[in-house]
């Protein structure tokens, strides 16, 4: 999912950076100091998830989990994901430095969208419906992220069109895995610590 430095056109880099700055500013504003540790935990989980590899046939995919992070954090997903991507770029060389803005918005904006789309669904009284919305959130965030990555590439040059399409196809297994994993995680958190996903206990358990 990370795009490296040098691949994208300057206007795309600038637009990505501007959107990330706006998103992070808004996210920081809505996050008070008491929530800092919680946001830090989620940021670290995104980092750790990137080295949990699950087998798919002969190959393997790693988890991204931006859907789950979005469901838990809302707008605070922006600063959380920016920090994790920054640490990955600086200490592991994943992705690039100037492209950080584009990478952050590609991963964080879907997380925020999923928050608004699915947060009602996951607090449904029926576990089945909640799991379905969790799966929609998990798979949906990856779908939107891949489309945004493809768009960032396409806007940088016609020649990237095929690579953009290939990115989408290559991520179909990731979408499926993320859907199932996020659904299971949502089901567990609903039972164990519902307040974490902002789930109204009264609505779930009457």
């Amino acid at each position, binding site marked *: 999912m990370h795009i*490296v430095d*040098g691949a994208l056109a300057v206007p795309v880099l600038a637009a990505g950076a501007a959107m990330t700055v706006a998103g992070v500013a808004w996210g920081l504003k809505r996050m008070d100091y008491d929530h800092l540790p919680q946001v830090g935990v989620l940021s670290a989980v995104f980092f*750790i998830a990137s080295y949990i590899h*699950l087998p798919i046939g002969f190959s393997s995919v790693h988890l991204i989990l931006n859907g789950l992070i979005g469901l838990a954090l809302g707008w605070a997903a922006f600063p959380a994901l920016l920090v994790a991507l*920054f640490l990955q770029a600086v200490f592991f060389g994943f992705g690039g430095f100037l492209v950080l803005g584009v990478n952050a918005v590609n991963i964080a904006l879907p997380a925020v969208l999923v928050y608004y789309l699915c947060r009602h669904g996951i607090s449904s009284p029926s576990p089945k419906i909640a799991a379905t919305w969790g799966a929609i959130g998990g798979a949906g965030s990856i779908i939107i992220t891949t489309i945004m990555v493809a768009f960032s590439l396409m806007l940088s040059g016609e020649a990237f069109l095929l690579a953009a399409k290939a990115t989408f196809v290559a991520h179909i297994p990731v979408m499926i895995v993320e859907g199932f994993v996020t659904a299971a995680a949502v089901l567990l958190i609903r039972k164990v610590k519902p307040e974490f996903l902002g789930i109204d206990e009264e609505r779930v358990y009457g």
Partner: protein
Amino acid sequence: MPQFLEHSGTSWKGQKVKHERSLIDRLDPRLRVVMVTLFAFATVLSHNFWVLSVAVIAGFVLALLAQLNVKRTLRRVIAMDMFMIFLIILLPFTTPGDTWFTLFGLSASKEGFLHALMILLKAHAVVLALLALVGTISATTLGHALAHLRVPDKLVHLMLFTVRYLDVIGQEYKRMRRAMQARAFVLRTNMHTWRSIGYLIGMLLVHSLERSERIMDAMKCRGYKGQFYLLDEMALGRDDYRFMALFIPFLTVLTGLNFL
């Protein structure tokens, strides 16, 4: 699946990575962050092969000066290459232009190849400089340097918390995976695996959050008011001025080469 595939070989070791003190480590962390940013701008915005070649060499020199661990650095550079390998291979075939050679009936254009080469050079120059100048700063010091550079307070706090939790959550994850292995759980491509991993992540979050709440309470108990105090006074020393005297003219020349 073999055990070594489960981890990308890049797991977070935080501050525990062995690193010998080098010339680069004598420089002010703030200076290193600023210089790498300027260097990245000079490299990424250029479209000149001479500039990019010099930039890659500069990246190498910085990596040598920082005495980066060869094996670790190579692994990271290769990991980055994996992110763009498809892009690089596809570019010559998808860029319109004069046919350079044909492969399986597909014609590769010279323009596409040059474009791919340009991306390769830029990405490597930036990543080497980044790993050499900033990757060698300990994460805590980096946080303080960013705070001194007027990065918003909350963002720096968040980064410091994240660095702290990476260690904790990484260990918690390994502990829970070991417990699953002890119960003969093997990763496969099926629902059972995905559900179990989902539960694992859910439990990981619950454990970590409860821990973070305890940490927050303990901090409040000791008078935490949403502020860390930056005790380290960062000041530019003689080495920093020497480095600037070398690096700023170099960047100017690098930028100037574009217009020749």
